[in-house]
């Protein structure tokens, strides 16, 4: 698979599923098995507990990930105790997560382990940079695209997206939804100077004037925009929004007469919660959105099988996806040597 070479160019990579059961774990396991032959030191961790709340409650269903001898992994104390792999402990963090402290260990054999990690953006960034102390070249992050999770996979340099029948059982729909995420990931980043100035600001809505001055609009969140519409454009048309971008906000901006001058800046693409229809309508009218933190999408993995056994035509799906996204597309079922057909009980050709 060619994208393994591509991965080696980055210091950090997140693997993100667009929905549960889109084959993220298969994809991650595949990447890990391929990287096991690499000369680079690999580390593996996760954002939070995968954003799956049920996981914390039942402490089950969390797929295990296969680490290979020599790889470093970071996981919570609780999951470390349950590991199958033989590993040498290198560090125990002083901060705790909901599942205990974080244990950094080096695998001494190849076997399965459950991975959980820090929950916040800052903590993940810290963790990635701390990995240098253990001579790590590439840190893989098991990420989640969830509104519930605080941590965003956009903190990593590169990203692999896992999508599939679990998201939509209709090929054009699935391609459309995946393409929307791809468009959001591809949003342009602001200049470095502006980025450094905006990154530390943790709340509120700010405008950046023509002269580059920052003004706090003293609006807590876009959810309260109704009450403060009059304030919005008093200092300029470039607006930095800390929280989420909603349909309501984009619809409001779309009908403004200076729409072509409006530029919204968000922390990263995961903050855009608007529906694709609203987003595209906003862009069509000439509005622009930029991000502070940009990540590069290097490949998309597809899983044609949905959890209820429903199966899409994988060749058709792959082709449709490739045409639209112009990115390398891989079928996770084929990656790990599974036979697609054997998994499909009720294959429906479209």
């Amino acid at each position: 698979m060619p994208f393994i070479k591509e991965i080696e160019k980055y210091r950090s990579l997140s693997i993100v599923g667009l929905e549960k059961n889109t084959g993220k774990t298969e994809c991650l396991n595949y990447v890990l098995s391929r990287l096991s032959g690499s000369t680079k030191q690999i580390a593996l961790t996760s954002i939070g507990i995968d954003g799956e709340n049920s996981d914390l409650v039942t402490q089950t269903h969390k797929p295990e990930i296969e680490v290979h001898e020599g790889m470093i992994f970071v996981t919570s104390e609780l999951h470390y105790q349950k590991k199958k792999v033989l590993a040498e402990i290198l560090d125990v963090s002083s901060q705790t997560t909901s599942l205990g402290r974080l244990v950094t260990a080096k695998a001494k054999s190849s076997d399965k382990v459950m991975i959980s990690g820090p929950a916040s953006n800052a903590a993940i960034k810290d963790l990635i940079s701390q990995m240098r102390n253990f001579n790590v070249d590439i840190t893989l992050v098991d990420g989640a695209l969830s509104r519930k999770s605080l941590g965003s996979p956009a903190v990593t340099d590169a990203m692999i997206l896992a999508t599939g029948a679990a998201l939509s059982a209709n090929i054009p729909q699935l391609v459309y939804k995946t393409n929307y995420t791809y468009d959001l990931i591809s949003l342009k980043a602001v200049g470095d100077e502006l980025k450094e100035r905006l990154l530390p600001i943790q709340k509120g809505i700010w405008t950046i004037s023509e002269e580059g001055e920052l003004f706090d609009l003293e609006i807590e969140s876009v959810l309260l925009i109704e009450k403060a519409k009059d304030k919005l454009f008093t200092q300029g048309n470039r607006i930095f929004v800390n929280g989420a971008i909603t349909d309501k906000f984009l619809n409001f901006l779309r009908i403004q007469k200076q729409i072509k001058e409006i530029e919204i800046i968000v922390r990263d693409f995961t903050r855009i919660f608007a529906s694709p229809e609203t987003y595209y309508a906003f862009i069509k009218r000439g509005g622009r959105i930029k991000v502070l933190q940009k990540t590069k999408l290097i490949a998309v993995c597809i899983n044609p099988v949905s959890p209820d056994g429903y199966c899409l035509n994988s060749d058709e799906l792959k082709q449709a996806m490739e045409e639209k996204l112009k990115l390398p597309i891989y079928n996770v079922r084929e990656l790990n040597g599974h036979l697609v057909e054997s998994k499909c009980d009720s294959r429906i050709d479209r």
Partner: protein
Amino acid sequence: MKLRTAISQVKGLQHLVESMQLQSSLGKRYLLDTFMMYQSNKINQELDLVNHIYSILRGKNVGLIHKIQTKLMQVRDIKGSVKNIMSNLVLDDIELFEIKSFALVSDEILKLQNEFETTLIEIPDLNSIISILDPENNRIPSFYIYDSYSSELAGIRKEIKKLKTAIKADPERYTGQNLEALLSQSEEIEAEVRGRICEKLYPFASELERALNQVAHLDVIIAKAILANNFAFTRAHISDSTTEYKAMFHPQIRETLALSNKKFQAIDIKLNHSVCFITGANMAGKTVILKTLALCQYLLQFGFFVPAQLAHISLVHRILVSVGDDQSEQNGLSSFASEMVKINEMVEASIKKENVLVLVDELARTTNPTEGRAIVNAVAEIFNENQTLSVVTTHYSNLNSDCRKLRVKGLDKDFKAGEINRNNINDYMDYSLIEDDDLKVPHEALRIAGILGINQQIIEKANNNLLNK
């Protein structure tokens, strides 16, 4: 009393403790769990340790202290694991890792401090623990059940590896059954090895605990010395009789003033085992004097240097303060009632001839002046009779003439109208204390109110009232 409790009562103390450069959470816990000390030899022992580092900080070996601090940053609080080993439990890999990495850091600190001519603090040698947990002698802070603990384990691990590769290559021929058996066998041996390791560690548990304490203590004394150095604190002498400060200051207030380029005027004060009144104009810093006295007393008895140029301090068993900024409404008491409850406690301690330091700000100020004055004189009389080390600030005149009185000089010169205003009044105020025999107290309230720019009508009318009397 623990420092943890004291800082919740004295804001200035809390501020100082928070500004300390403690490197480990272990050190922080140790510090907060320190008990107030009542014996001069104990205090001097601690001050000797602080003083040693204090003098190193001003010498050429200061770099070594910084190196030790960097090591202290790596120290983790492993109290739980130590407790488990002391109660002869089998620890898990994470706990064993913690013990090993602590033992290694502790050993590195020990080596660093051996570079000094005299040791800073006694740290036990943990090399026996290290050798138990580091069978391959890597001296790297990492841990697992190494192959070298058991040749049997090493053999099984090799077999597992071989079998796994075989299963991967040909899943039809090899079933997972053998693998399961091998895995559970290796787990059993690992558990047995862990048990053996813990048995071997058990005799060193108390050494480990002592090392943990000593390392924490080292963190604390370094932080105390740095604090003293940063704020220009001094080592107090413990006195048998009088308490005397030369150029005493309140570190937090001095810092705040320095931010606006103002200077804190240090105070000289001497106290006997009797009552001492402090009188003086409003805004003359009487409350600050009381707060600083309390702060200094706590600092010394928790083994810190004190904010003064020179200090002779007599030790006390308790410090009783009434500064009237607590929230009496919450207790359902009026401000007078809640003050009286406090004063009662002080008076009772005094009658029992307890060795206490009593600090009262504007005693009985919330009631009428006639009875208020009577209360002040009565309380002072009791303190005097029982030789209680006490300071009482007041605005009342006609105080008991047997009592010692100090007066803040205040605005004791004449100034042109408009020369002083609310922003520069601090520059004109002379905060120093003088012995005062006068029965009267300075009447400067109206003058200061005028400077503060309050409505002129009040001042005119008040002055007329005074003349008509």
